[in-house]
């Protein structure tokens, strides 16, 4: 039965396959968030704030502690802010389960701490 359907609609399936392949290739340019924290091998006492920004780009959050040290926080992934299936409005919320999964990945980032002269004095990278 299934074979008969496929045989009768082989043309449509071929078009669907081509369109699907085309659409998959149309993801466009990426945001470019870098998350290879371990591989970057940033060195305590040597790496500077500008080295980190040059490599990873701007952090997602910056805090200054009471000792004048800057803490740069980098997230482990982009945030899923919208999702729609078979609809046109991508700005709808992605739903609870995808949000929770995404939040877990986002949290697996890194924290780099710099002394007031801008040298890396501590790093906390996700394992």
């Amino acid at each position, binding site marked *: 039965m299934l074979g008969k359907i496929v045989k009768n609609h082989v043309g449509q399936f071929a078009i669907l396959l081509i369109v*699907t392949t085309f*659409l*998959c290739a*149309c*993801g*466009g*340019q*990426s*945001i*470019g*968030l*870098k998350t290879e924290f371990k591989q970057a091998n940033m060195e305590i006492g040597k790496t500077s704030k500008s080295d980190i*920004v*040059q490599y990873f*780009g*701007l*952090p*997602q*959050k*910056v805090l*200054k502690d009471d000792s004048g040290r*800057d803490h740069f926080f980098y*997230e482990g992934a*982009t*945030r*899923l*802010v*919208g*999702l*729609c*299936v*078979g*609809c046109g409005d*991508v*700005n709808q919320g*992605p739903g609870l389960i995808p949000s929770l999964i995404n939040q877990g990945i986002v949290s697996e980032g890194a924290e780099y701490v710099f002394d007031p002269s801008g040298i890396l004095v501590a790093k906390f990278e996700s394992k």
Partner: protein
Amino acid sequence: MFRFVFGVCAVFLSACATMQPPLSGEPANSLKSGKAVVAFFDGVEQIKYSRDIYLVLAVAKEASYSTYSGLWNSNADVSGIHTTELSKIGIQAKSLYEALSPEEIAEIQPILKTMDVSSRMKASNNSNELASEKTAPHLKQKLKDMLLSKGFDYLFFITWSGYNLDVPALGISPRETLDTTYSIYDLNRDSLLWNGSVRAFEQVDLGEATAKEYIEKNDLSGLKKEVGRMISEKYKIRTDHGINSTSVGQYIGLQDNVAAVKQGE
């Protein structure tokens, strides 16, 4: 059908820019003849990147935020851009960051922060109430006295909602948006002269770079270039198919609205 399309366009355009009517007559002339100080305050200090991901039967949107807090003095740079553009349309404008000493700026920075809705939303538990504020904040006495003592008659207090760069799916060009709010104060009369928000949107060519690379590499050269371009473009009267865009000067009432002049003839 034409009326329907016109109505939809009107609703769409009104959502892009909410503001008071343009100034005219004596207030507009006084604004042009007086001395103005331009103070941009960045309460956001954040870039928002977003991207659509086409999943054949679904579309997802991902986003990431980058902060340049402590890495770029956007207040001074963007005040300078607005000052240059306002000077071109006849305002005797000077940037706050050139008019005051670093000590004086440090002294009034907390006042500017309290005037900025974004900053107050960060610190407030009731952000919804602040977000729905329709009126510009009251001018603080200390700030007013300092600016009057420097010989200024008007304050252009400018804020924004932050720079956004969106990368749509299906090969559509990336686009950037910037919502800027202008509050013009008459320092002598201690009153708000004009208030309005203007949205700028442009297409941006990232080349082969990712969004973050293009915007953030070489000490944020992309961000500085795009912010400068978007602000400058919004001050220009652009023409397409014989129809003029509305410039910041026209919104405020500092430049003639060509369409309105023609209608009145």
